[in-house]
């Protein structure tokens, strides 16, 4: 095994899980738990979750369905409050939702009453970015995401893949430091999904944002990530975090080549086994 495994088990970690080089992680999920009160009583959705993402890191979370991945994401985004624990950005409590932690949702969440261009500009209008700069950044995103032809289209006129491109552009145009992606390709067909995965890799080479990415696809998790976090069944906790070697040969190849690479296959199998244990046990 060429890669090391950081094995973080349940329960709060002692002290701050700072990254190797001593400075604060970009995004830190510290001892986050979440329980809901339903008619059936109290439900624990998340047992204590701890994760720390370094600046520019791409971390994917996989886990059995219903394990609380999305809940963790909503807490990380500030859209949901944790029952205990905290979310830190650059070592400071992150507070409510905002453009610095941009979210890409599985169901796109585009504004149906706005054109593609208007959707992309929404956040900039909120932030009162000067008009000429808005136009410039809009053009940049339209080109980057291949949306030029659709600038005046309404979301319902676009395919799912195109809609998600718009949603990604709407996030990226705000130059977020952190991008939270909640199964962003989960609602897309297999081909579109592959294309967008590759594009995401390409986008990351342009903007070095920090990404927390949730998926139920093990392949996707391994292909995209610097580290893959596997979650336990409900109440969800981080079971294991696996490093994906940055210098792996397949990393520089396109997705179909990468997926055939023995090292990739090995890694995928390893992650899948960990996920499967949780599914079988539940």
């Amino acid at each position, binding site marked *: 095994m060429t890669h090391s495994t950081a094995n973080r088990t349940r329960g709060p970690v002692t002290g701050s899980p700072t990254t190797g080089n001593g400075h604060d992680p970009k995004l830190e999920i510290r001892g986050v738990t979440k329980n809901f009160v339903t008619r059936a009583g109290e439900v624990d959705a998340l047992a204590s979750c701890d994760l720390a993402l370094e600046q520019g890191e791409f971390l994917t979370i996989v886990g059995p369905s219903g394990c609380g991945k999305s809940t963790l994401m909503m807490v990380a*985004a*500030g*859209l949901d409050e944790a029952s205990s624990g905290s979310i830190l950005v650059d070592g400071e409590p992150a507070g*409510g*939702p*905002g*453009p610095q*932690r*941009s*979210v890409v*949702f599985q*169901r796109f*969440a*585009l*504004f*149906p*009453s*706005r*054109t593609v261009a208007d959707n992309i500009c*929404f*956040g900039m209008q*909120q*932030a009162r970015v000067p008009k000429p700069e808005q136009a410039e950044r809009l053009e940049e995103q339209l080109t980057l995401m291949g949306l030029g032809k659709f600038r005046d289209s*309404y979301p*319902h006129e676009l395919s799912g893949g195109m809609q998600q491109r718009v949603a990604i552009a*709407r*996030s990226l145009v*705000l130059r977020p430091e952190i991008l939270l992606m909640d199964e962003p390709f989960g609602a897309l067909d297999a081909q579109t999904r592959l294309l967008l995965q590759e594009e995401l890799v390409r986008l990351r080479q342009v903007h070095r944002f920090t990404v927390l990415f949730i998926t139920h696809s093990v392949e996707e998790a391994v292909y995209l990530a610097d580290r893959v976090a596997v979650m336990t069944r409900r109440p969800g906790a981080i079971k294991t975090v696996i490093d994906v070697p940055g210098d792996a040969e397949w990393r520089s190849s396109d997705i179909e080549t990468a997926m055939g690479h023995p090292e990739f296959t090995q890694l995928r199998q390893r992650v899948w086994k960990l996920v499967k244990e949780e599914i079988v046990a539940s």
Partner: protein
Amino acid sequence: MTTETSTSTGRVPLQRPYRPPRKRGTTSIWRRGLSGRATFVIGVASSATLVAVWHLLSATALVSPLLLPPPLRVAETFWQFLTAEYLGETLVGHTAASMTIVAGGWLLGGLVGLPLGILIGWSDRVRWLVFPLFQLLRPVPPLAWIPLAIVWLGIGDPARIFVVFLSAVVPWTINSMAAVSSVDPLLIRAARTLGAGDGSILRRVVIHTATPTLVAGARIALGNAWTTLIAAELLAASAGLGFVALNASQTLSSDILLVSMGIIGVLGALFSAILRGVGRAVAPWAKEA
């Protein structure tokens, strides 16, 4: 294994001419989606048929002209009535009187119902506070308010406008509320992550997204207001289409009665069509509801 002879097995022999499933060209006219123009033609044709049957009925004297005057006479009356006065006003004057009352009641209804509905849909607190009261008042038919309207406002236009207002404010409120609360909460969450605050979300996301339903609510409210008009004009009116209809029935002038009823029908349909157009104009992105 030839299929030709295997009819006994229940399989269709190949020689039998293949009948494709009904395609567009052969589909019955009722099943097909039609263009706007075609539906218009069909509408005109069915109305024309009705008039023809009406004409035949009166021409063959099957029905007394006192009860149902022939269409031509109604048309003639309409023509005269455009310029000649009946009960102190021409047709234009009566129509204007009616429209003033409807417009007044409808606009007041919107002034109250639109913001009220939006607030009820948006804020739980407002809903808890206002909705029970609203639900209590809602089942009371606008006509049941007439006695109270007279006591409060006397027998004039204000009382009539009040009654029309009551009939309009309910659909204004209910539909605005439904429009706002049916906005996908995910859009609100997305807007928050894009840096929008409450006010901005309400204006730029919720109301913006709800516009087509809000306009639909306005249309239903106008329909209600218009149909309540006749009842409102029973309040000792001195002008208006309902007032004309009431008087005409008392003097057995059924031609005038039919003219006023026709105008009420045509204007009601026209308002509805206009607001449909407004809906399309303000929300070109919406799929037709």
